[in-house]
């Protein structure tokens, strides 16, 4: 587990950073915790003092980040053009959308892929959509049905060298988002120098980012800054925000995540308090030592992430369906993930999978 360098934590909390006398370790931490732009800005503003060599390294990383973001923007435009031909549309989630909206310039918010949300009206046509975006690949015949039944929440695609995470479900926590139409109908068009994209309403974006932090086990410090940016920059409607979270029954993960960010960044905002059994188990799984573990912490995240859906309030039917989906995935899901070859025994695969999954969950919960 690689916790952020003390100077990084101080910078993120908005305070003066202590002197950095181990620049090599500091730079490793900057990279791991996706803080390049924030540290470079702090250096240029004099909040932190680095050697010229270290600053140039950051400058080079900054250029690489901006280069990647330009590619993401090009890919977003390409996807929009391809989907117009099949009468579908997408919104851009997180990444470059969050950056364009809440940060000052390109490359300030590290991102590694392009997250898109498919318009609800196109869900029944998922097969044609994914073929339009990433043609030439083989997709399972049951794809449309999986998406229509809300069993498949996303798919990884490629546009050129850019990895595209196409969400069929905006929140992607395992449970189907209840307010799908509200999420889409409240999107707004954001005009930028790099193109116009549809983005989420700020309140829903905040929820999505908090859940994403939770899913990632709060591994990296950089994404914490998104929350601060939105709180500082968005005219949030807190009644709407609380109502949205309550309607999804995701109070525990959302408000616990909010409280986590508030503590780490020293924010004055107070999240609604969450108590009860689910709050207690959430703390055991994602509290304290589990946070800010960098790449190592992130590597362990997928195992525990599967338990996130169980922290919704109620939604027994959805939870049962999610547990069934995880333990006994539908054949097309396994084929899509490349885990089941044609002719391979479905039942035999499931039995082996069940044994492995149980072992992983036990190990993950104990870490």
């Amino acid at each position, binding site marked *: 587990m690689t916790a952020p360098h003390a100077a990084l934590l101080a910078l993120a909390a908005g305070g003066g950073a202590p002197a950095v006398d181990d620049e090599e370790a500091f730079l490793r931490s900057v990279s791991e915790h996706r803080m390049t732009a924030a540290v470079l800005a702090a250096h240029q503003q004099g909040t932190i003092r680095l050697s010229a060599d270290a600053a140039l390294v950051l*400058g080079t990383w900054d250029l690489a980040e*901006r280069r990647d973001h330009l590619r993401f923007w090009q890919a977003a435009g390409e996807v929009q053009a391809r989907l117009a031909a099949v009468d579908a549309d997408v919104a851009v989630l997180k990444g470059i959308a969050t950056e364009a909206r809440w940060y000052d310039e390109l490359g300030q918010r590290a991102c590694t892929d392009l997250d898109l949300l498919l318009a609800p009206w196109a869900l029944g046509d998922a097969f044609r959509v994914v073929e339009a975006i990433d043609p030439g690949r083989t997709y399972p015949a049951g794809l449309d049905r999986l998406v229509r039944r809300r069993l498949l929440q996303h798919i990884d695609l490629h546009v050129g060298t850019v990895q595209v995470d196409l969400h069929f479900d905006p929140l992607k926590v395992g449970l189907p988002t209840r307010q799908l139409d509200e999420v889409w109908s409240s999107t707004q068009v954001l005009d930028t120098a790099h193109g116009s994209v549809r983005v989420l309403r700020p309140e829903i974006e905040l929820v999505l980012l908090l859940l994403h932090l939770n899913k990632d086990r709060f591994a990296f410090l950089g994404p914490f800054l998104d929350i601060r940016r939105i709180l500082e920059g968005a005219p949030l409607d807190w009644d709407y925000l609380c109502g949205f979270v309550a309607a999804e029954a995701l109070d525990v993960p959302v408000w616990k995540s909010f409280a986590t960010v508030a503590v780490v960044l020293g924010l004055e905002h107070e999240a609604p308090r969450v108590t009860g059994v689910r709050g207690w188990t959430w703390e055991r799984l994602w509290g304290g030592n589990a946070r800010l573990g960098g790449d190592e912490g992130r590597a362990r995240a997928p195992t525990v992430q599967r338990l996130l859906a169980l922290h919704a309030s109620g939604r027994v039917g959805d939870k049962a369906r999610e547990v069934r989906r995880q333990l006994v995935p539908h054949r097309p899901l396994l084929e899509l993930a490349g885990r089941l070859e044609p002719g391979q025994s479905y039942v035999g695969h499931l039995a082996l999978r069940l044994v492995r999954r149980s072992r992983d969950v036990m190990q993950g919960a104990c870490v």
Partner: protein
Amino acid sequence: MTTDRIGAEPLDDTPDFEIPAHVLYREVDGEMVLLNLETEHYFGLDAIGADIVTRLTEQPAKAALDALVADYAVELEVLRHDVDDLVATLVDAGLLERVEGFG
């Protein structure tokens, strides 16, 4: 190497050079790092090189040269030679280009 001598008479206050759209750059502590998106090559300039490029892309070349001569207390011909070399290197690397329509 491209011969791209500078210092011709400017037509107006428009800079004679620009950093092309396919180049990303960042100034850090007076130095500059550039990335050519077409070739994926990075290029670093020390403080003097960065100063020269900044001036050449902000004002006509003649004005830039005059200011550099004054600031660095150097012979005009020596400076012109060094700047020519730098400009040629940057133009060859696709990191700098003459403003279209210039003389």
